């Protein structure tokens, strides 16, 4: 008698704690448990908020010269110091976040649009179309990433828009490959066969069934590629081949500050630290999303 009561009470416990969850709810729960992922999310959200609110929260005009405050070390009135023209470094960093965010979003947006489309077409239709698309992607991959961006900049000329295009192009093959392999793994599934036999058009099947089922790796990859995009853009600007002075792009700021490395160390340290922090944030977020969505994912 006693034993059976215990069993009943245990069963009741189980029924009270059990809640049906959707895959998304389970994913969010897994994500929230991961400390590193949450830190990444906080950094990313903070960065986006700063970028959006830049004109309202920056204490000074990022372009305003102040000849009375040249190369000042960090102080209360200028927490990150001032540069060789007396411009407030904090305000420039805040405004620079807009440039980095835009490069990340637009650059990766271009790669998603083109890469995902090409990868889907190659994976879904297969055959000769697949071979042609993937051979072109292989050729693009034959150029080490940064070099490809440099090559594109050398044709288009160094400026911000071209940096975004260059970064967009150099991530295309990565997206195409990942998307192609996910599409191939999905296209023989029963629900696709079922839609086909019901007379669904290719366009309908791709849009309604294939892409939604292949989106997880693309989300993870996009987050990580934004980090790469920000890093690459900063590298290009640092070499003088991206954003041009007086733009407050972080890489360009570092390049300008390098001349004063001995007299004003903060001009080289601060932008570098900020770039690292933001890139770290996106990478941790990407890692967390991958672990939450599918830890076996090969990205």
């Amino acid at each position, binding site marked *: 008698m006693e034993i059976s009561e215990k069993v009943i009470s245990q069963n009741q416990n189980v029924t009270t704690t059990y809640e049906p969850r959707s895959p998304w709810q389970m994913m969010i729960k897994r994500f929230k448990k991961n400390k590193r992922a949450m830190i990444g999310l906080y950094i990313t959200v903070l960065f986006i908020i700063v970028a959006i609110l830049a004109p309202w929260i920056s204490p000074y005009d990022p372009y305003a010269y102040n000849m009375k405050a040249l190369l000042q070390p960090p102080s209360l009135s200028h927490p990150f110091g001032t540069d060789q023209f007396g411009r407030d470094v904090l305000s420039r960093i805040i405004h620079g976040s807009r440039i980095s965010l835009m490069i990340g979003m637009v650059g990766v947006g271009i790669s998603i649009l083109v890469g995902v489309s090409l990868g889907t077409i190659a994976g879904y239709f297969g055959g000769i179309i697949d071979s042609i698309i993937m051979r072109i992607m292989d050729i693009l991959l*034959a*150029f080490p990433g940064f*070099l490809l961006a440099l090559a594109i900049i*050398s044709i288009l000329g160094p400026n911000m828009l071209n940096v975004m295009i260059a970064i967009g192009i150099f991530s295309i093959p990565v997206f195409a490959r990942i998307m192609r392999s996910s599409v191939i793994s999905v296209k023989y599934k029963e629900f696709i066969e079922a839609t086909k036999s019901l007379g669904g058009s290719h366009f309908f099947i791709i849009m309604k069934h294939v892409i939604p089922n292949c989106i997880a790796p693309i989300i993870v990859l996009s987050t990580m590629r934004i980090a790469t995009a920000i*890093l690459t853009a900063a590298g290009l600007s640092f070499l003088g081949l991206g954003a041009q002075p007086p733009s407050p792009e972080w890489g360009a700021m570092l390049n300008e500050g390098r001349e004063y490395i001995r007299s004003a*160390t903060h001009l*080289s340290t601060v932008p570098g630290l900020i*770039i690292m922090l933001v890139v770290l944030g996106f990478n941790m977020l990407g890692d967390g999303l991958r672990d939450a969505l599918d830890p076996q994912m090969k990205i």
Partner: protein
Amino acid sequence: MLGYIVKRLLQLIPTLIGVTLFAFLLVAAVPGDPAQIIAGDSASPEEVEIIRSQLGIDKPLYEQYMSYVVNILHGDLGTSLRSSQPVLDEILSRFPTSFILTVMSLIIMIIVGLIAGIASATKPNSLRDNVSMMFSLFGISMPVFWMGIMFILLFSYYLPWFPSGGSTEFKHFVLPSIVLGLSASGVLARLTRSSILEIVNQDFIRTARAKGLKEKYVIYKHTLKNALIPIITIVGMEFGILLGGAVITETVFSMNGIGRYVVESIQFRDFPAIQGSILFISTLFVFIILLVDLSYSVVDPRVRYEN
């Protein structure tokens, strides 16, 4: 084995055609008239015309491409607009610097990356794992140019141990190789960890443990050997990425390598030099990837049969 090598070499031909085509189109796609750019604004139309025929750009595009490929096969990558020297000579004179830098950084990357990866995979979710994975995340996220500047500041300015620039002696290579190697080791550490963890859960490892082998033996002899393929792949890929990353490192440390040559050529709009160096590096990269592919068949003979 020989048949496999020949097959892989033949597969290389379309890629190489693609690479030359890309390098060729790179310059053909430059907006504006290259002849006019070279001649300058003050040149007369006749002078521009002469330069145009010298460059061969008055012919149709496919003919230009054919003669471009023929020239490459004869070892002619064009003449630098800046120095009037053959581009290939300029590249070859700078190649040793870039090569030494890349190889030294690769060695540092392999040592640091493998140690960090093995350290975290052998005790997953421990403090050791967390520390080495955070280290690799930092490695991936740190801008290599910033790390270079910080190293110059620390080890050349505050502690005057190494020179801050140059590429003539061994000591010039120390700081840049450490910077480049460390920044690349993050990717390798992460990959080593995930490949080992994937293998560790397989049956044959359980068997190895069950028959009482020492843990060291299980890790180094059984696990690592099987985790080698993805690790070799990433090392090969990194070789190319390091060549690209060397562009920035060479500039920061004022080294006279191909990377810096590319940057300077872009700044001077020296198109034959840009075209030549991009072709050179990417061809090198294609052959490295081939070596990587061939090494698979040594590490894992099954690869040969599958192909």
